[in-house]
């Protein structure tokens, strides 16, 4: 079957250059000498889904946001350690350039409320003042909406406001918006926590499809979700990366007793 061939090819690619992001002894503080994540090291695998799990407040969002430097919105943040993207130190790349390579999707769907569905998809181009030909725009919009499985539902209402869609559709629109720039990595912070089970299932299917072209890092409070769709999992606790490895292995034979306790539902 065709899919097996594709999978084999994928595996070859992964073997050639598997680690796309390398996080090395990363500590992030929101100010003062209290670090919200402490000496986190991990190599993120290309074209895989990596789930970040852990109880609330353990630093999942902080780690995720450090990867595209969104944590710097808080002026007092500082960090130690490093992250490299394809060998390049991300803290030496201009954050604006970096964020075009590492897209982000948030907990609540947040399409731009003044923009149409069409404009939301190409918002990165519009807002950055990049002029495109009409045909280029149409092509990006169609490609991105098809990628997230929203094309058929929206192709006749592209001029309508993005906020007119249902929550799940809005979230897929936000993923399309993040994809329009063809980033290398997509970060998602609990993208389904505001959605119903059906919309959640659609997003999960979508993420599995997307990993063919993108590297996905997913923060989730939902262990089932991590088990269903992720290839690798991280378990964080009190700012520490307790365990990181293949999801299957971690869910069947966790190495750390804190991971085990979490997987058995002993933390919130």
């Amino acid at each position, binding site marked *: 079957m065709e899919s097996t061939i594709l999978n084999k090819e994928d595996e070859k690619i992964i073997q050639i250059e598997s680690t796309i992001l390398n996080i090395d002894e990363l500590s992030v503080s929101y100010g003062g000498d209290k670090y919200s994540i402490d000496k986190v090291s991990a190599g993120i695998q290309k074209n895989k889904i990596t789930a970040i799990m852990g109880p609330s407040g353990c630093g999942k969002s902080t780690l995720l946001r450090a990867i*595209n430097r*969104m944590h710097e*919105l808080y002026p007092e943040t500082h960090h130690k350690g490093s992250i490299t993207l394809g060998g390049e130190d991300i803290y030496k790349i201009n954050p*604006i*350039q*970096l*964020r*075009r390579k590492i*897209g*982000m999707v*948030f*907990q*609540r769907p*947040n*399409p*731009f*409320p*003044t923009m149409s569905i069409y404009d939301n998809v190409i*918002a*990165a181009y*519009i*807002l*950055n*003042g990049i002029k495109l030909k009409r045909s280029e725009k149409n092509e990006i919009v169609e490609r991105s909406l098809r990628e997230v499985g929203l094309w058929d539902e929206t192709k006749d209402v592209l001029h309508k*406001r993005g*906020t007119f869609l249902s929550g799940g559709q809005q979230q897929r629109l*936000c993923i399309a*918006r*993040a994809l329009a*720039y063809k980033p290398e990595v997509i970060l998602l912070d609990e993208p389904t926590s505001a959605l119903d089970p059906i919309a959640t299932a659609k997003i999960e299917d979508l993420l599995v499809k997307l990993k063919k072209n993108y590297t996905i890092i997913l923060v989730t409070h939902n262990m089932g979700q991590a088990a269903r769709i992720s290839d690798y999992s991280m378990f964080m606790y009190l700012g520490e990366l307790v365990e990181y490895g293949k999801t299957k292995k971690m869910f069947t034979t966790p190495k750390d007793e804190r991971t085990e306790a979490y997987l058995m539902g002993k933390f919130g």
Partner: protein
Amino acid sequence: MNISNSISQQKLKWRIFNDRLFSIVMMSLAFISALPLLSILYQLIKKGYKQIRLNFFIEVAPDTMEAMMAKVNHEIIPGGIANGIVGTLIIVGMASLIAIPLGLICGIYLSETSKGKMAGLVRFVVDMLQGVPSIVLGVIAYIWIVKPVTSGFSALAGSVALSIMMLPSIIRSTEETLKMIPSTLKEAALSLGVPYHRTIFKVLLPTGMSGIATGIILGISRIAGETAPLMLTALGSSAINLDITQPSSAIPLLVWEFYNDPNLIDLIWGASLILLLIIFLLNLGAKAIAKKWKVQY
């Protein structure tokens, strides 16, 4: 569980009666507070409607002799308030041109800087400014503009005085509106690699447009009827004047002039009615914009 049973029938009736009484009292009080406005409107229309013909909008105010002759002959006073309308448009328009950009920038700054000494100081100054009597702003514009810049009374000086008066409401409404916008929108833009300044001007401002525009229009409607600061700055003019460095009339200035001239006093009603209508329309416009441009996050 069964609270209603524990309250006797008697008490229940008393409560219902009380509720009714309360809403009746509320409605009457609301009506009473609307009375002055209604009676003002009634007076103005009753006494002013005769004046309001086409000439009223396209002719300048008559001089006292013309008015006296008309009165003697039992005719309608000739002329209109065109010099005042044009003056008000120019003075208020220019005041808006000065105040809107300044107010927007200041409001954006405050909404983006919730903490910090400088922001606190700016907020304090804005609050103080809100309380400065308009006549004092007239004095300030007199010192700043009339003497050194236009060496004489001028529309420009009037605009400066009024622009200072507009600033607090623009700044505050901008700040409050922008603060209401969920931070996730800003994050969405920044995560797309959109620079900070573009995020503000292309995402936050358009999203808050309805609230900001409403604040601006209400600010305009507040200054459109100001008289005192204009007496010290624009002074007044019997002709239509398009030169902003020269004295200019304005509708409220005309009302004041009419009041001081027994021959012209009948023109007060028409002029006031027009002024009131302009302010009404601005307020209605503000409401319409608030409704039409409202965005849903």
